[in-house]
């Protein structure tokens, strides 16, 4: 019994027991599916017929002749490049506004956080679809000002922007993290800067941004990854149209896998996506030493 007690109270055991739910989840719901999908990416597996024969690299070769794939890659990159900086800037701005000492701050923070909570949900996407519909809120307002209505989802060039705007609107989680980071910056820095005669803007550029840069890096990476995986908006609002103008990468993977019965092809697409995402994340990491300020270095 004593041995058992010793074992159970051992720090390592306790650690593993607490980590067990994650380890279990990771093995069953991440690692196994990933390995399976890697295998399927070299086959012509399809859900409907359940047959899978080895086809080598032909799925990957086919990607480069698939116009919709290439288009979706471009659109997703565009979406990431526009939505992530906008979202981070907006989140930082709101977090900045909400660092003032006031009792209402907690309320406001919770309010702004709610959109993130319901973030990728179908309900929000449906609301968004209505707002930008031909006779939706935005067009009614435009109409009220005597402007002509805009056909948001009918024009290939415009259709992506409501989706980007929706992602920006879900800035809550980044904002909370920014707000926490802002609180960590010692007020003595600002006081010193004030004595030296620095203005508000200068304080922001010279103190806030550098002190916050590790957190910006974190948010940047998390948001970039989640932006690459954006799916709900495109699936619910536009279904990839018009003319595949909002065919996000994840949506095309879904279509190939579940709608067109090309699971093997979809798996190979997912792996290409993983590689693209890894490269971009790596670039962000590598670049971080030029702009992320850590107190240990200085």
């Amino acid at each position, binding site marked *: 019994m004593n041995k058992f007690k010793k074992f159970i109270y051992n720090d390592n055991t306790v650690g593993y027991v607490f980590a067990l739910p994650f380890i279990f989840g990771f093995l069953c719901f991440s690692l196994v599916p990933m390995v399976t999908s890697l295998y399927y990416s070299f086959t012509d597996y399809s859900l409907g017929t359940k047959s899978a024969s080895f086809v080598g690299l032909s799925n990957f070769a086919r990607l480069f002749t698939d116009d919709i794939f290439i288009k979706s890659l471009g659109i997703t990159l565009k979406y990431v490049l526009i939505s992530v900086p906008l979202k981070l800037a907006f989140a930082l701005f709101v977090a900045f506004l909400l660092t003032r000492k006031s009792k209402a701050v907690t309320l406001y923070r919770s309010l702004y956080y709610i959109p993130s909570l319901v973030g990728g949900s179908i309900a929000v996407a449906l609301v968004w679809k209505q707002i930008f519909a031909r006779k939706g809120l935005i067009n009614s307002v435009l109409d009220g000002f005597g402007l002509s209505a805009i056909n948001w989802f009918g*024009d290939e060039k415009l259709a992506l922007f409501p989706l980007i705007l929706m992602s920006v609107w879900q800035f809550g989680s980044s904002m909370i993290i920014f707000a926490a980071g802002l609180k960590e910056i010692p007020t003595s820095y600002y006081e010193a800067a004030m004595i030296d005669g620095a203005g508000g803007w200068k304080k922001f550029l010279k103190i806030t941004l550098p002190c916050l840069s590790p957190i910006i890096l974190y948010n940047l990476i998390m948001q970039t990854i989640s932006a690459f995986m954006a799916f709900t908006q495109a699936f619910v609002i536009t279904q990839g149209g018009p003319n595949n103008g909002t065919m996000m990468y994840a949506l095309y993977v879904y279509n190939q896998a579940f709608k067109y019965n090309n699971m093997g092809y979809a798996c190979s697409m997912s792996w290409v996506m993983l590689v693209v995402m890894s490269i971009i994340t790596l670039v962000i990491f590598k670049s971080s030493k030029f702009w992320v300020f850590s107190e240990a270095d200085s």
Partner: protein
Amino acid sequence: MKKRIFALFLAALMILSLASCGKKEESEDIVLRMAWWGSQTRHDRTVQVIEMYEKEHPNVKIEYEFYSFDDYFTKLKTLVASDQVWDVFQLGGNFPEYMDKIYFLNEFIKSGVVDTKNISDAYLKITQDTDGNQIGLSNGLNTYGIAYDVDMFKAAGVPLPTDTWTWDDYADAARKIKAATGHFGSSGFTSSEFIAGCSTYIGQQGALGENGFFNLELTGMGFKDAQMLAPYIQMRADLIKEGASPDAGAEMEITNIENDFLVTGEAGMTWVAVNQFPTIYDICAKEGRTLALATLPRVSKDGNSGSVIQSSQMLCVSKDSEHKQAAAEFISWFQNSTECNDVLQGERGIPINDNVRKSLTANATPGQQVMYDYVSLVGTFKTPDKINVLSPSGQDQVVDLYRNYIQQVAKGEITAAEAADLTYKAAEAIFK
């Protein structure tokens, strides 16, 4: 310590025995899983008859799920992959893709579990495969048509469609309605458009039965010259460009037949599978508008109609089912019970059981009467001896591509001739 462990052990034992108790009870009760796609009306009515069935059969519990058309098949594909297809499930002309999962009704018909006394052989045949296996029982007869708003035609000064109107008449009507009312001439209920429009257009060309979109055996294309599609694609693209038909953005706002632009009063016509007609007729009648059904336009006045009466959809038993007989019993009741069909009201198509059909036609609502008359009219059209109304696996992708090509033609990115070639190639590719 030892005591505690013993107590724990006892508790665990108790829970286990309790759980096994629960299981025993379940095995006496039968739980059937069932799913279908359709509109809200269908969901409401089907749920109602399921509750009726459960009341009559206290040992049967039916767990039901319902979806829109696209989502239904997405879900079905995942269930096929995990060998968990619903006990009773609905399939349409795309059943060949799911053949591996369908449990034929042959033995149940032989043993009398499925009652086919009042169903004529001709109606049984429409849901049999080429070897005579009974794949399912058809929920009803169906055909495609164009539903239109009578007043909108009159307001635009367009003559009402005749039985032999042509695609030129159709496009002309759409343009005039747009010009006179500012609304869409023709809406785009796209789930029906590919079959009712594009595919029918091919069948209307050449001699009777010479052409079809896919061949009879579903092993390849049913026509040789891709350019046969071009005029139709050109017409669709022109109507979109001129605003007489919804563009991709507007089309996205239509999620099912009940909010199609024809029903919301923003369009003069739309494509329908005629079993959908009574529902939308009733909705519009409440608002004081009258809908009517027109035949599918033809390529030429005296040419083929291209229309065919087919099974709208059927209920099948799945091979994954643990209660195949109970599932078959339910299907039999669903098809043959007049009480059940009085609730369903032929919403899935005109029932194939003679008694049920008689009882329904005797009390037909005005909207249903239009549908019955229309189906008899189409029944008088000349049809080829053999016709293929089935969809091959992979058709979804072809349809998505085809729609996209039309949008590209409307935008002027490609010509209709190129779109026809591309569509043909995409369709050919699914057989390779």
